[in-house]
């Protein structure tokens, strides 16, 4: 787990590498580890990666992941102001507080959530999958049509292979290698890792204006700073908690909400600090990000519902071990779940201890030449895909999907909907067919239970809210 935390931070620090990619790259490697150890390592990587993303955001203004963008605004200004170490400390403590509170809540509510979820039938699972699809592709993404494009690609990838209920082979080009479908490992590694390598190559020769800022000064917060940041940490956590459970693509929305709140509050103070490197501007978003990550793990474990790209990759990791996260996981493999939850606490404590004093050391990793870094990632990606199936077909598929990943990056099509669609696509299809089969093709069965009705209503509310938000943003821009 400690190794995971260290590794996760290391990967997260490196620009352009988020925690989703860290987990994806290590996915094949863990075939040889036992499930509990591997999953605990992933947790370390997950939280470590989140923090690493913020380190590069604060020091270089290149957030490693979209979730670290919000804390990079003020964090980078603090760094420019010679307070880089304090900014990092604020981020580390914020991550710790947000993650801790979220995990405590998960520990208390996961069994209840799982118990509620055992009443889920095919109709409910279908509603859940539809909810996740629509939410991830249209509520979160900047442009609904681009999100849907990602969704369509993912759903298609999920269709390839043998149709479980009937045994019909679908879209296999008559190739026996495709009968089992395309492995989720191949898809995630190709999209997240190889696609990023190609995207980096496409930027070769462009000026790189991101400069690393040296860290100096004390890595500790004074009492005054701590008191200034504490309410912001707590407010950020409050934003982050509910968003972890909603399949809304991760922590972008809550981190920006937290950032916006801190900025509004700051304007009312006698001496506004925003724009000059505000400690609250780092504390709020950072706590929100980790609180989301914490409850997202809860949703993943108890409902089997991945609410962000990283959670989707983690779900794939579970499936590799034959574990299906969801209501039954607590009953069938309870010991793993509790070991995992315990490791959350350990991971966050370890990260706090590791990162408060050593953040400047991590920053040294940013000096690794970009070319070696991505060359190494390419080698590791190819290794992982080959090791997973020992098949050259997989490597060819990886190349194809990697190119797709490049096109998606160049033209702003989000990747998260693809991953969610690949993972939840089969669930959606089979539960719809089950529901129809059980009811003699009566479409009303899909809205026959309170849970489904609530899910669809929530979805509708989310759609209306996102349309409203987009309109407000547009008018703010033109005004």
């Amino acid at each position: 787990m400690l190794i995971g935390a260290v590794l996760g931070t290391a990967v997260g620090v490196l620009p352009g590498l988020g925690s989703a990619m860290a987990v994806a790259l290590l996915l094949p490697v863990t075939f040889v580890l036992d499930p509990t150890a591997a999953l605990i390592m992933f947790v370390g990587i997950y939280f470590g990666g989140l923090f690493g993303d913020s380190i590069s955001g604060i020091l270089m203004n290149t957030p490693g992941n979209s979730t670290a963008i919000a804390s990079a605004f003020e964090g980078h200004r603090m760094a420019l102001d010679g307070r880089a170490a304090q900014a990092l400390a604020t981020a580390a403590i914020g991550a710790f507080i947000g993650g801790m509170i979220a995990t405590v809540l998960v520990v208390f509510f996961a069994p209840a959530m799982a118990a509620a979820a055992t009443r889920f039938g095919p109709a409910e699972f279908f509603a859940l999958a539809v909810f996740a699809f629509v939410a991830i592709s249209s509520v979160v993404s900047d442009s609904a049509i681009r999100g849907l494009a990602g969704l369509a690609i993912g759903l298609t990838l999920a269709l390839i292979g043998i149709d479980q209920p009937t045994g019909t082979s679908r879209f296999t080009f008559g190739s026996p290698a495709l009968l089992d479908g395309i492995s989720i490992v191949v898809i995630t590694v190709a999209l997240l890792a190889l696609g990023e390598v190609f995207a980096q190559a496409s930027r070769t020769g462009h000026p790189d204006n991101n400069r690393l800022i040296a860290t100096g000064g004390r890595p500790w917060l004074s009492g005054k700073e701590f008191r200034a940041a504490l309410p912001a940490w707590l407010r950020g956590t409050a934003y982050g908690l509910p968003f972890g459970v909603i399949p809304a693509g991760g922590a972008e929305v809550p981190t920006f909400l937290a950032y916006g709140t801190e900025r509004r509050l700051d304007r009312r103070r006698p001496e506004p600090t925003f724009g000059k490197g505000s400690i609250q501007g780092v504390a709020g978003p950072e706590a929100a990000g980790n609180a989301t990550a914490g409850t997202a793990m809860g949703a993943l474990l108890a409902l089997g519902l991945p609410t962000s790209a990283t959670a989707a990759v983690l779900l794939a990791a579970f499936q590799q071990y034959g574990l299906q996260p969801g209501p039954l996981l607590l009953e069938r493999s309870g010991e793993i779940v509790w070991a995992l939850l315990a490791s959350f606490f350990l991971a966050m404590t370890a990260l706090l201890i590791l990162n408060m004093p050593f953040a400047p050391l991590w920053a040294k990793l940013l000096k690794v030449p970009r070319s070696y870094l991505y060359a190494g990632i390419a080698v590791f990606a190819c290794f992982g895909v080959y090791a997973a199936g020992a098949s050259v077909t997989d490597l060819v598929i990886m190349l194809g999907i990697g190119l797709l990943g490049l096109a998606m990056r160049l033209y702003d099509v989000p990747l998260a909907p693809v991953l969610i669609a690949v993972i939840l696509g089969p669930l959606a299809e089979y539960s719809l067919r089950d529901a129809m089969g059980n009811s003699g093709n009566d479409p009303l069965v899909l809205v026959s239970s309170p849970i489904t009705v609530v899910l669809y209503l929530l979805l509708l509310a989310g759609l209306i809210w996102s349309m409203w938000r987009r309109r407000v943003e547009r008018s703010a821009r033109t005004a």
Partner: protein
Amino acid sequence: MSQTPQSPPPEAGDPAPGNAQPLGALIIPLTLAAIGVYLVVGTLTMDEVGDDNGIFGPRMMPWLVAALALSVAITMTIDVLRSRRRSAAAQPAASGPAERSGEQTGEQAPNWRAVAIAVAGVVAFIVLLPFAGWLISATLLFVVIAMSLGNRNHATSLIAGLALASVIQIVFSGFLGLNLPAGFIGSL
């Protein structure tokens, strides 16, 4: 997901939707259209196992996805073309559609040559792996990717690549028992 912020920074009003999208952006709707056509053909020619699967048989989902892919492809094409026409009308000679408000790296035409080299590197790896073995093909892959990213120090990257490939070989093949092709080195 790393380089393209999905929610624009609240204070920076840049990547506005009104800006022209490059013509290359059409590759996404084209891909989707190809996917849609492929799904339709594949579904029509599907060799269904078992009869009387009803409407909700193995063909149901492919039809839905095909419909989604095709309609998104059409909408996106219109979206891209319209954004180009609008911005061409909005900004005459002064700036031209090429000058778009960039993101942090500044938006420039992608370096296709570098991408081609990187892709060639991966293709070479796939072709070479069964014959040359892991050690040689992985080292080569490392050197080629480093080259595509602008590294001209081939000797150093050769050593770094060989070191990485060897470490992976030793740790995963030697200690953990994963099988990597040895190639002709193995028969020496």
